């Protein structure tokens, strides 16, 4: 382990995915968390917001970023290609898991995934999230593959777009079906952006691990540091009662997890050929 990285006073680079509309807001959202970690680890923490997780994973891989809060698929890639290691998983409403789903609109006549993938669904339009999305692309694609369906051939048109756009277009009837995840759908309904009645869930995935706090391969070898980091993160949950600004709404803390927890996603990646075998 390079002495420079261990030394007290050397700043830790903390990368965060973009969960807010713009960088400033995002920075503001996670600055309390960074401050908390800085205090607990006794080292300054540089917060860095990144919109696309490729950049985060890549810089984690090359040791330019030390720890990162990133989506599960980004973590799996960073782990797969660069040995980045998860230390904790974030809790959403108390759970470290969420679900991928496929939605349609009530007028589509589709009731189940079998309908969608059978004769009834042939020639429809379907939207994935972008190709880096776990719930929007990888998991549903894996499910289609297991059922022997090539979406590019089965559907008349396949689009790759943002989660919010999928929901809006499906409820508007512009698309027949699309892939999304529960948290996004719930949030959009809660904000009034879509109406629950127009968005029909026809399939739900097995539980998927939430976003990970991962450290670079070099830091991961420092067991003492990892333990201190896990402890610091575990404190966040209880602290939320007094310091609500530590995490965005609905997030309720962190729980220590290891790489095995992300196996479902890694398997999906391997099975679909998106992850190269080692």
């Amino acid at each position, binding site marked *: 382990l390079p002495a420079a990285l261990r030394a007290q006073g050397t700043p830790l680079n903390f990368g965060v995915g973009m969960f807010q509309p713009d960088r400033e807001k995002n920075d503001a959202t996670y600055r309390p968390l960074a401050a908390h970690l800085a205090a607990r680890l006794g080292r300054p923490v*540089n917060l860095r917001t990144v919109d696309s997780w490729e950049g985060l994973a890549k810089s984690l891989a090359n040791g330019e970023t030390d720890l990162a809060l990133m989506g599960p698929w980004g973590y799996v890639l960073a782990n797969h290609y660069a040995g980045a290691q998860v230390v904790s998983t974030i809790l959403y409403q108390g759970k470290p898991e969420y679900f991928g789903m496929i939605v349609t609109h009530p007028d589509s006549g589709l009731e189940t995934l079998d309908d969608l993938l059978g004769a009834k669904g042939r020639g429809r339009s379907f939207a994935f999230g972008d190709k880096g999305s776990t719930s929007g692309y990888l998991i549903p694609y894996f499910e289609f593959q297991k059922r022997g369906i090539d979406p590019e051939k089965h559907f008349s048109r396949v689009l790759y777009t943002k989660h919010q756009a999928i929901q809006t277009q499906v409820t508007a009837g512009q698309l027949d079906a699309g892939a999304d995840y529960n948290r996004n759908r719930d949030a959009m309904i809660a904000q009034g952006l879509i109406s629950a009645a127009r968005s029909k869930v026809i399939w739900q995935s097995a539980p998927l691990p939430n976003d990970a706090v991962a450290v670079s391969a070099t830091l991961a070898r420092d067991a003492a540091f990892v333990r201190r980091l896990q402890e610091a993160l575990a404190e966040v949950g209880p602290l939320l009662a007094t310091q609500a600004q530590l995490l965005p709404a609905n997030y309720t803390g962190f729980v220590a997890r290891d790489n095995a927890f992300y196996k479902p996603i890694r398997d999906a990646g391997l099975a679909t050929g998106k992850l190269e075998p080692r």
Partner: protein
Amino acid sequence: MNAVTHTHAVNRWWWPAGRAGFALLMACYAALVVLCLATLVATGDLSFGRSPWDNLLKTLSEFARPSLLDAWFGPERLEYRSDDGTVLRVENRRAVEAAYLAGLARATWVTFQIATLGSLLAALLALPLALLVARNLRAPRPLAWGAKAVLDVTRAVHTLVFGLVLVGIVGLGPTAGVLAIALHSMGTYGKLFAESIESLDMAAVEAVRATGASPMQVFFHGVWPSVLPQFVSHHLYVWEFNIRDSTILGLIGAGGLGLLISEAVSLFQWSRLATLLLVVIALVVGFDALSRRIREALL
């Protein structure tokens, strides 16, 4: 050529003329650059990382084995195993890569088709506008302003926006792609064309005009022969740009090189990225060679 022409060199009281004006402008630019640098430095954002050279070498080595080699030399039976050792997937790397290459060829052809037609249409639309905009051809002022407005607006509107709008108008499909590319590139062309015309040696053009030739005759006998080499190279440049960068194709449900690149980037598929880069480099070098050849013949 004498500088005394009908084009009135506009003098503004609030800006010094000639070299002093240019120097002042340069000073403003320098100040701007310093400001940008200073803000970045102040926020501590300007850094070259911890070990740039190691990282550079590491990254370069990742590009060393383009995936297209796998189509001939890859393992014929590649197993994807889960952590617990269960085999999740078995693939014939050669077949997979051959299929990828075929897909790449299709994507290139699709982009090529759409970009070719779009670029041609753009050039045809831009040409008359460029003639109106170029100051030294002295088109009537209102027409010149109108043409300039059209060019500026089309250049400002992103291809994606045109694509989205056009998908709503002519429906999903290549037509929307062609039109979107044509409309956006038109702005770029118009600007480049007009500036080529403006930096023309006007003595010969003036001589043609002085014979009483009509504006179109002046163009075809005085301007066109002189600017043709530049037009050709601008056309090839924009054409090439549209092929390698088409971001509009996702919207209309086609593939396209640009999308394959961003897919490979997001999946860290370095070897595929290397393959894609080889294709794009071949494309760029080819277009550039063609452009040079034509310019050579024309200059």
